[in-house]
């Protein structure tokens, strides 16, 4: 009973946020339909949501599509979540994702005619390494100069976009193609395990979620990360090195986001264009927050967001509601989550104080200095 109650304290805010967003979404659906056609169709919201559900879990193919969309969000969510655990706000998951994809495509193209047993691990490793380096940079800057990771990672996101476009238009460009586009990664492509495109990356993402839980809650390093996040002064007093933890955590977070980019490229896209990129790295922030930085929570949140992405086209086709509505719902979820204290007051939720340490870490990261002296 106690555990049940405690679980509710932790999940109440995400659950209520989702419910509110779905309701708000239906208002948006009905209103926009009324503005466009002049007809008031109260049933349209229900149609749209049932089409969304059909498209995400209504058939085997729909479920596969949901999982494929879930994988990068899950890895990205773990990346942002891990950083939150150390009191860091990794807005740079997007840049790390792109760098991971870039690393994977470079090495994948080089090894495209070799055995997959060599090509795949090499391309994945390259993606993870590139992501890790791209996470290491803001971590190192923070640890040595105190430069805030929010500022540096935002800047690095822009740099990543530019580097990627530059390389795809020059050294990586297929000479015979008029468009800036790379070669196909060939044998470095991830094997399809089930359905139309259920690739190996899904398994990696789930394994990483397990590894995340193990690292954070079962190891001494995880304890150091959590302590640094909750109270860097106490961490220093306890003989830990917050600087080292900051560098390490940002590198690991970068690696996870890099792996997200690599699996997405090797499992789904296979080639890279100059305008390559999605909003995965940013959605990952919402996933981490919705999952309250808990590994199980992040998996669930990633599945929810992945399902919405997978079902959006079906919603557009069957109900005529633009797929962009999914973006509206996701954004409002994030909105309610961030406005947590207000939501908690309106719904008279007991503060999640009873839930140890699961909440609260991330709200502190905006302004606080992790590294002192």
């Amino acid at each position, binding site marked *: 009973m106690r555990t049940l109650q405690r679980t509710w304290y932790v999940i109440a805010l995400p659950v209520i946020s989702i419910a509110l967003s779905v309701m708000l979404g239906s208002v948006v659906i009905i209103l926009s339909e009324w503005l466009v056609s002049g007809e008031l169709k109260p049933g349209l919201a229900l149609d749209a949501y049932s089409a969304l559900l059909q498209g995400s879990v209504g058939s085997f193919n729909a479920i596969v599509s949901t999982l494929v969309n879930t994988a990068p969000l899950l890895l990205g969510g773990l990346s942002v979540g891990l950083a939150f655990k150390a009191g860091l706000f990794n807005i740079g998951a997007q840049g790390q994702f792109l760098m991971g994809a870039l690393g994977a495509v470079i090495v994948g193209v080089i090894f495209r005619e070799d055995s997959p047993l060599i090509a795949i691990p090499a391309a994945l490793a390259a993606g993870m390494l590139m992501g890790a380096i791209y996470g290491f940079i803001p971590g190192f800057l923070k640890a040595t100069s105190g430069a805030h990771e929010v500022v540096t990672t935002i800047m690095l996101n822009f740099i990543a976009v530019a580097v990627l476009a530059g390389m795809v238009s020059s050294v990586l460009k297929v000479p015979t193609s008029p468009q800036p586009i790379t070669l196909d990664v060939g044998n470095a492509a991830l094997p399809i395990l089930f359905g139309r495109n259920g690739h190996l990356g899904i398994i990696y993402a789930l394994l990483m979620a397990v590894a995340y839980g193990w690292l954070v809650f*079962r*190891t*001494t*390093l*995880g*304890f150091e990360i*959590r*302590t640094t996040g*909750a*109270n860097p*002064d*106490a961490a*220093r*007093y*306890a*003989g830990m090195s917050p600087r080292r933890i900051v560098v390490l955590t940002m590198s690991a977070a970068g690696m996870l986001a890099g792996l997200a980019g690599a699996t997405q490229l090797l499992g789904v896209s296979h080639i890279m264009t100059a305008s390559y990129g999605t909003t995965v790295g940013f959605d990952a922030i919402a996933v981490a927050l919705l999952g309250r930085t808990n590994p199980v929570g992040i998996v669930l949140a990633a599945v929810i967001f992945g399902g919405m992405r997978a079902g959006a086209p079906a919603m557009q086709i069957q109900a005529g509601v633009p797929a962009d509505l999914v973006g509206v719902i996701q954004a409002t979820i994030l909105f309610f989550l961030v406005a947590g204290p207000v939501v908690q007051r309106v719904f008279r939720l007991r503060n999640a*104080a009873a839930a*140890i*340490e699961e909440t*609260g*870490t991330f709200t502190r990261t905006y302004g606080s200095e992790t590294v002192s*002296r």
Partner: protein
Amino acid sequence: MTEEVGAPALEMRGITKRYPGVIANDHIDLGVRPGEIHALLGENGAGKTTLMNVLYGLARPDEGEIRLDGEVVALEGPADAIARGISMVHQHFMLVPVLTVAENIVLGSETMKGRYFLDRAEAHRRIIELGQRFGFDIDPEARVGSLSVGWQQRVEILKALYRDARILVLDEPTAVLTPQETEEIFAVLRGLAKAGHSIVFISHKLYEVLEIADRITVIRRGKVVGQRLPSQTTEEDLAELMVGREVSLVVDRGISKPGEPVLKVVGLKARDDRGREAVRGVDLEIRAGEILGIAGVAGNGQDELVEALIGLRRPTDGQVTLEGHDITGHSIRSVYGAGVAFVPADRHRFGMVLAFSLPDNLVLTSYHREPYAHGILRDDAAIRRTAEERIKAFDIRTPTADVRASTLSGGNQQKVIVAREFARDLRLLVLDQPTRGLDVGSIEFIHKQAIAKRDAGTAILLVSAELDEVLELSDRIAVMYRGVIVGTFDGRTADKREIGLLMAVGAREPANGATEGSVA
């Protein structure tokens, strides 16, 4: 003055204030006569603050009434309370350091010249006049940030007087003062009382209450448990009332049997966070089974000294040796590994992680060692087992081990830290303000534990701004002033006044020729 019978200036009758799960005030009666200094004594959490919040209009009582000069009033808020002549001097001063004395005093009740301009001349005139009336000359143009703590407190009192306060509430006013400053402020308070002001003096320091108060009301767990006249009570009697059981105020420290030197510090220098030299050449020696107390007004380099000793701060010069091994500038973890433990002054900032459970806090400094970890893997079962044991052994009051540390009372939080640090096999124990802000019961417990550790052969360095604590526990006392040791005393024969003077000015009267500069 105590025998004067008169209508009370302030009377609180049957004040009851409930918060979810607790009754903070349970039918409290408190009457304060004009010209009376009335002490409100109680442990932390006894309900003193709630009662004063009710008086200051910050909290609405659920039951009961407040009478001023016999008239029932309903206070709407602090502004209302101030308008009716009630003022509060908080423990943490509510002053703006960059503003002048005059600006701070008029803040919120500015005398205006026309619509947009402050009447500075009038404000200055009134401040000087008030200061003279109560015997302290103050420069209205001085910046508050440049004043000593004792003078800042006088600014707070002036602020109240400027608002024509007839009833002054002082919340733990001496917590930050030296003994000399305390006596000076007491003189000010006596002067105010003589002029007809009523003063409510909140404290948990027994000897102070006995010295200053005309009457003493003791509250415990939200109830008034007794009222005493200073002439008819003792510290022991008050402590027992306050805690609800017999308390030994002075721990029996027994006789120390100092052994071999454990810690040797030679010419240690260290800078503070702003880069100024805060420790300017300190020599110390502590033997096994001995407590060396460092007395000093807060901010004279004690924090930096301790941090430099244990590896939180890199010394700029000098040498620290532990049992003959040089540990100067070693990392804090290697210093801990050599058998040193540290109880930090700021328990919320350094000593614990408030968001963590008790087991996690109880292994905060040893989580990486057997049996709590095997390699990089935590052993949750072992951590839990140890936590349960220590919660029992150190009488940490908590519903379960799984609560956040932030839900414990200050005394129990400190017990968590003490349980963690004292449990190890130690060579040197560094205690920095180990009982700051704690109630008598917790202080007694922690002092006993420290003595037990000493008797087990641990060398102890005790830093405290509470001179009484240093006097009670220390076998030897060193006085620190502006980054150097300015004198040492034998703990049993030390004279409180002499040490207090040395703390305040850094030098003794020339007639008193004693060893200075080093403790060896």
